[in-house]
């Protein structure tokens, strides 16, 4: 078998394993797997910006919240159709990302990080204060999971978690596939060029700022998708989604998993959620435990989990070659 065939076989096996989760495990594990997939969508999109383009945003929670509130408001005032709701959530996130991005992409590095942070917190305070629209600090509650209607007639209920799981899984696979296509597209190649040397890319006649803005909006749309799905999962949207500590989550899991690969952020997300569950089982002070783990990762394992795995295999194969 060639390498690409092995890769397809592994992917198919992983997909089957994911599809089998509701059949073989308890409710809680199904729920946790959904949380991993949501964080995975969030982080895979985010990594198009950080890993691919080299821009560190600390404001992506705002787009996550835009997705969640977009779906919630659309469901409450127009129609509870979940597919349309998700589309509206993604569109809302993209619009907010376009506004924020327009202000921020003229900067890079630390200036970009702080600007996105400040803009994200503005969205947070808007959501927090605009009580009549968003429900303020109570959150936007009572979001329903209406059945999905496909091809005009086929109605699929997603009310139960075991049914909703496949709704999330479908979007997860779609999101990862889209991110993969973007990474290997000419557009993705330009983004890598911008990361490696923005000035040279500019000299090659490429409008760097437009590309930065485009990928910012794309990654914002991914965040919006994750937010809309979480709103459906939890039946609410909370202002905390836009808070900067939430914006830090994709940064964390991307670094935990490894920036340079497509699946790094997903592995990081799974690790993050598993660790949070384990720490919370023993102590209330999970922030402390997590902070310490983060310190250790930054001080000692900078390639992330994927980097560590690659190192391990790299060393092995190098040893075998000798």
């Amino acid at each position: 078998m060639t390498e690409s065939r092995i890769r397809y076989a592994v992917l198919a096996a992983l997909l089957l394993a994911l599809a089998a989760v509701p059949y073989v495990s308890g409710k809680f594990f199904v729920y946790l797997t959904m949380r991993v997939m949501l964080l995975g969508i969030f982080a895979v999109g985010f990594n198009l910006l950080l890993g691919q383009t080299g821009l560190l945003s600390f404001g992506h929670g705002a787009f996550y919240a835009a997705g969640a509130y977009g779906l919630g408001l659309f469901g409450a005032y127009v129609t509870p159709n979940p597919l349309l709701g998700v589309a509206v959530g993604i569109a809302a996130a993209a619009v907010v990302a376009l506004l924020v991005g327009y202000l921020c992409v003229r900067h890079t590095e630390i200036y970009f990080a702080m600007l996105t942070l400040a803009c994200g917190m503005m969205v947070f305070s808007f959501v927090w204060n605009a009580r009549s629209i968003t429900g303020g600090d109570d959150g936007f509650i009572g979001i329903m999971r209406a059945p999905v209607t496909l091809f005009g007639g086929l109605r699929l209920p997603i009310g139960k978690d075991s049914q909703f799981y496949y709704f999330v899984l479908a979007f997860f696979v779609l999101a990862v596939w889209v991110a993969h296509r973007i990474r290997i597209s000419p557009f993705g190649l330009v983004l890598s060029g911008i990361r490696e040397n923005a000035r040279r890319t500019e000299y090659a006649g490429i409008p760097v700022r437009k590309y930065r803005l485009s990928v910012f909006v794309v990654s914002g749309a991914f965040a919006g998708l994750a937010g809309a799905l979480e709103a459906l999962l939890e039946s609410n949207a909370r202002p905390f989604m836009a808070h900067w500590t939430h914006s830090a989550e994709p940064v964390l899991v991307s670094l935990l998993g490894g920036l340079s690969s497509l699946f790094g952020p997903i592995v990081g997300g799974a690790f993050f959620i598993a660790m949070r569950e384990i720490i919370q089982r023993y102590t209330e002070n999970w922030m402390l435990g997590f902070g310490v783990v983060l310190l250790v990762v930054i001080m000692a394992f900078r390639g992330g989990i994927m980097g560590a795995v690659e190192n391990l295999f790299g060393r092995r194969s190098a040893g075998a070659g000798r």
Partner: protein
Amino acid sequence: MMQSVVHTVLAGLSAGMFIWLVASGLTLIFGVLGVLNFAHGSFYMLGAYMCYTVLRYVGPDFWVALLIAPLSVCIIGYVVERWFLRYVYHLALPYQLLLTFAFVLIFDNLAKMVWGAGSVTPPDLSTLNGTVSILGRNFPVYNLFIIGVGPLVAAGLWLFLERTWYGRIIRAASSDREMAASIGVSVPALFTAVFVFGTWLGALGGGLAVPYVGLVTTGMGETIIIEAFIVAVIGGLGSLKGAFLGALVLGVLTAFGTRFFPAFDMFLTFILMAGVLLVRPQGLFGTAR
């Protein structure tokens, strides 16, 4: 109307001074070390908690507490720089930011464990409760004192950086690390000193905030660090002058927003920031890059 406007300006100025105290340390550390310290808000919070602790268990004299508390937080700042931050200066930006973010998580949680998740109220500080009549309405003397402290710190920093030998060395190291090292400056020790001094400024702000706010919470650091970030962006990163003016403008604007347009107070800040950045992307006093 006149009375209302003057009082709003005064309230805004005193709020702005706290932002300035945090932003000054943040800016100084960024200017010299090149690291943006998320944990700076935690130093502010720890300064307030330490001040509360000294007042509670050592003695009710606020000025003694204000002397001891920031110095004790400096020890924490020393540990952070000497044993952690020092090893990430050469790393990419996300690692530096996340390292300081890890300290935010750790300090916030430790504060919750030591002082409880709710707020704590300091013992009676009624000696500081005097008021003075301005245009026929009472204004707290302590807030006037705060309005005086801010410019004093600014002047002190300016004199120190521009007029002393140490200040010259700090400026030299911030403009060219390698050159400073090659003429015999111990750059690592200097960085530690600047970081600890920045920590002291943040913790001093926290200590001063205790009588002003009247209660100490774990969330107070997170709120002010965001404001300090906004100020640093508006003023131009690394510019102390910009941070000072930015803090005053932000404080006054927020006070007017809260007073006259309560629903949009944060929006005014946003409009200010967006406006400044559209006209001068590098901030008011930032150098064009």
